[in-house]
């Protein structure tokens, strides 16, 4: 009976080898997908039960984890919730996460692969994985100024550092209180979340980089002017047709200027003056003179139709395809189907300010360990050069005139030269237009660029123009940054 016993012991070994293989498969091969399974509450517990790094603005925590007495052990809290909600987003056990809480999650919870060397050192040192502190590029003064200046109006403000691409301010209104969603009681959080989803004005949407995006109106004339100057056919002094009406080619629709009338008594107007007073008829004809392909190419060079993450995902701004001449004319003045995010508009200004080189916008300044030593620091990255330095300086001069003697006088700052462009974007018929303003300063040594949109004219309603409603907000933000 010994032979079958020996064979049986081989069978037993085989059985256990199968068990070892099965256990290895589960705990090693299949483990990542099992850990990611939404039904796996362990991931939640591990995630919420461990210390999460704070989000820091100018040395102050704007999102932090405090020890709590319940099952999770930590409670996420936002000391200045509404003002920073567009950036921080929320961190909820019940409804997930958004904003930096979502897109910097692997840094905040300490699992980021990009920091593998630091994590490896921790492992060797026998330390538990730790959440990293993420220091944001946001400038508290600029954020506060943008928040205050926008007041109760709906809209968004974005400011970027023209020399690095760092995002200095990002405000979206209406806002919400992320603390409401960070609570741990499922029923309460669900109720609040449903209320926010249903709320008028979509407070959960970050209008600065996403949402439905906006028609840019006349701020798009910066792109049209860029294309014209880049083509080499036009200069700042090129004479354009600034009549009181421009019949859209192939239609009977006549495009008028804002407030009616011709842009110049002679009917001819220079490109610089057309931008200064935001002459629609001149830019509409210029659009067709440049052509839709050149316009589209210029828009794309600025970043239209390209996805971007800062690391929050930015909805690509759109320049439509397959236009006829009428639509090209409308697109050239930022109407029709052109759509932009405020961040994209700020990037256009920042590129002009930066001599034609476009820098990638970013929100993470440094990543630090709990003992505050820096493990990673973002360095500026060039996205491209949409315009030449010559075009950039021409446009700068043209934009300065907008503020000194044009539609953007409300953005003037004593002692500082400001370059800007207003926009008043028609939306649906009967609704008040969106008020836009984008600017950078100082024009001779640019530091900061800003874009402001106030939906449907804000408090001014149908009487609103970009120069009247949005320019003062842009001015406040620029001043806050320059006064540092």
């Amino acid at each position, binding site marked *: *009976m*010994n*032979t*079958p*016993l*020996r064979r*049986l*012991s081989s069978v*037993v*070994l085989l*059985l*256990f080898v*199968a*068990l*070892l293989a*099965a*256990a*290895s*498969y*589960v*705990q*090693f091969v*299949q*483990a*990542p997908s*099992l*850990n990611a*399974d939404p*039904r*796996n*509450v*362990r991931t939640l*517990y*591990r995630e919420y039960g461990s210390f999460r790094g704070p989000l820091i603005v100018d040395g102050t925590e704007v999102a932090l984890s405090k020890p709590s007495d319940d099952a999770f052990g930590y409670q996420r809290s936002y000391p200045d919730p509404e003002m920073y909600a567009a950036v921080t987003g929320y961190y909820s056990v019940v409804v997930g996460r958004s904003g930096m809480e979502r897109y910097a999650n692997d840094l905040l919870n300490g699992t980021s692969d990009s920091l593998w060397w630091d994590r490896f050192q921790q492992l060797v040192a026998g330390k538990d994985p730790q959440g990293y502190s993420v220091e944001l590029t946001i400038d508290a003064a600029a954020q506060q100024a943008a928040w205050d200046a926008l007041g109760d109006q709906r809209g968004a403000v974005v400011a970027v550092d023209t020399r690095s691409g760092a995002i200095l301010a990002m405000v979206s209104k209406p806002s919400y209180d992320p603390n409401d969603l960070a609570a741990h009681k499922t029923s309460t959080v669900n109720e609040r979340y449903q209320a926010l989803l249903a709320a008028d004005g979509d407070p959960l949407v970050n209008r600065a980089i996403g949402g439905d995006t906006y028609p840019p109106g006349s701020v798009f004339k910066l792109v049209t002017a860029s294309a014209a100057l880049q083509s080499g056919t036009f200069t700042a002094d090129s004479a354009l047709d600034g009549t009181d009406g421009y019949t859209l080619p192939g239609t009977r629709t006549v495009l008028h200027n804002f407030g009616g009338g011709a842009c110049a008594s002679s009917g001819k107007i220079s490109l610089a003056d057309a931008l200064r007073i935001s002459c629609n008829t001149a830019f509409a004809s210029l659009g067709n003179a440049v052509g839709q392909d050149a316009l589209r190419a210029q828009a794309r060079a600025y970043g239209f139709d390209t996805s971007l993450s800062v690391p929050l995902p930015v909805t690509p701004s759109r320049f439509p395809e397959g236009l006829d001449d009428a639509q090209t004319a409308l697109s050239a003045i930022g109407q029709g189907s052109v759509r932009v995010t405020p961040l994209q508009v700020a990037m256009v200004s920042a590129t002009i300010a930066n001599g034609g080189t476009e820098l990638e916008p970013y929100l993470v300044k440094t990543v630090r360990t709990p003992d505050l030593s820096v493990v990673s620091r973002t360095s500026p990255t060039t996205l491209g050069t949409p315009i030449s330095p010559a075009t950039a300086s021409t446009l700068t001069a043209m934009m300065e005139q907008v503020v000194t003697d044009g539609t953007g006088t409300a953005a003037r700052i004593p002692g500082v030269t400001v370059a800007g462009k207003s926009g008043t974007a028609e939306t649906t018929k009967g609704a008040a237009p969106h008020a836009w303003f984008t600017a950078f300063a100082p024009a001779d040594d640019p530091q900061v660029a800003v874009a402001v949109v106030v939906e449907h004219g804000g408090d001014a309603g149908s009487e609103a123009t970009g120069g009247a409603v949005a320019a003062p907000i842009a001015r406040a933000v620029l001043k806050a940054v320059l006064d540092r």
Partner: protein
Amino acid sequence: MATVEPTPVRSGRSGELGLLILALALGLSAYALVGSTLDGRIPGNFYRDGGIFVVVTLLTHAVVRWRAPFADPVLLPIAAALNGVGMAMIYRIDHAHADADALAGKQLIWTLVSLAAACAVLVLLRDHRTLRRFTYIALLVGVGLLVLPLVPGVGAQIYGARIWIHVGPMSLQPAEFAKIAFAVFFAGYLVTNRDTLTLAGPKVLGLQLPRLRDFGPLLLALGASLAVLVAQRDLGTSLLFFGLFVAMLYIATERSSWVLIGLGLFAAGAFVAVRAFPHVQARFSSWLHAFDTDTFNAVGGSGQVVRGLFGMANGGLLGTGWGEGYPQLVPFASSDFIIASLGEELGLTGLFAILVLYVLFVQRGLRIAIGTRDGFGKLLAGGLAFAIAWQCFVVVGGVTRLIPVTGLTTPFLAYGGSSLLANWIIVALLLRISDNARRPAPLPLRAHGPAAEPASARTIELPRPDRAEPARQARGGAS
């Protein structure tokens, strides 16, 4: 004439003591770690409970020294290690359920009872061959134990399976004990009838088939037990008995045709069961489609297995550490799914260690069978060792989704008095058989008085030089 110097047989008792101390240290440090992680201090009853466990284990070791001095030195430490680690995990899960000590305390009492029973077996059963006298009584006892849960008033249906009986305040799973009874019956029956089973009978397609009258009682025993088990909806035990039956039949007859017949019967049985019984069908489909949302959420669906897999995945390679995971999220985390709990907190590494302990245990058991002289002992030891291996395979395979889940407990680790008691009795039986196998037979020269023997006179002259084992040499010399 060759002369052979018989090497003195080492009892292995000091080795056993050393291993036992390691095993106890493993269990106690696990217990202390659970407390220090969850409460920041060692558990309140650490010295009392740990002390009890140490004392009864060492007492068992003493009984082995006294009654089975040549027994295998590895079995007791492995069983004690698994038992200790299991209790630490049960305590840890009790703690997570804020029900400190509920099951762990009971398991400690059961450990005491089991070790006492093991000692009793060692003391009372001086020679395992005595059991052969009870071959048919064992059959009756086995069948009786299986039927017991169906008897109104005694049996109880818990979690859909009617496999429990109430004895006073306790509930017992008689099938665990039936396992031993059937092993004794199969061993006794097969050792008597192996020749007729093997040789007499028609040959069909090259397969030697047994005569029905030889095979009848076996088939009857097995069929009855399987029928009862299907009626009780306890697939795990049914599978366990089937494996035990086929393995012992193979050991007895040395014919692989029996294995083929066994596998054929199993395939047919499985096919019929899947077709005929909705609950078997549900088990099967929840195995194949475990991750489907419907299956996951269904009552009795794959939720338990998948939650167990989540736990094991959470443990990864190195585990979360004692008290750092969430094993309590898996239903039956301290009994049927204790392997998933251990996989989570000790990781793949810890799970490997545990499985290797089982492999060592079973391989020692099979070696005992090989080293035993009598056929009954061979069959009994081989059958019992294989039963442990097979039970592990069925339960761990179920938890790791290698095979469908069936309700069985992990030997020594899982919470459950019946299982613990039955498996410790198996340890005692294996110790007893190994003691008989390794014990040097009284030397013939002792007849002249051992005290008068000069050391050189202990050489034995053998009739023929062969490679017989020391035990056989001694016997050869004696005859």
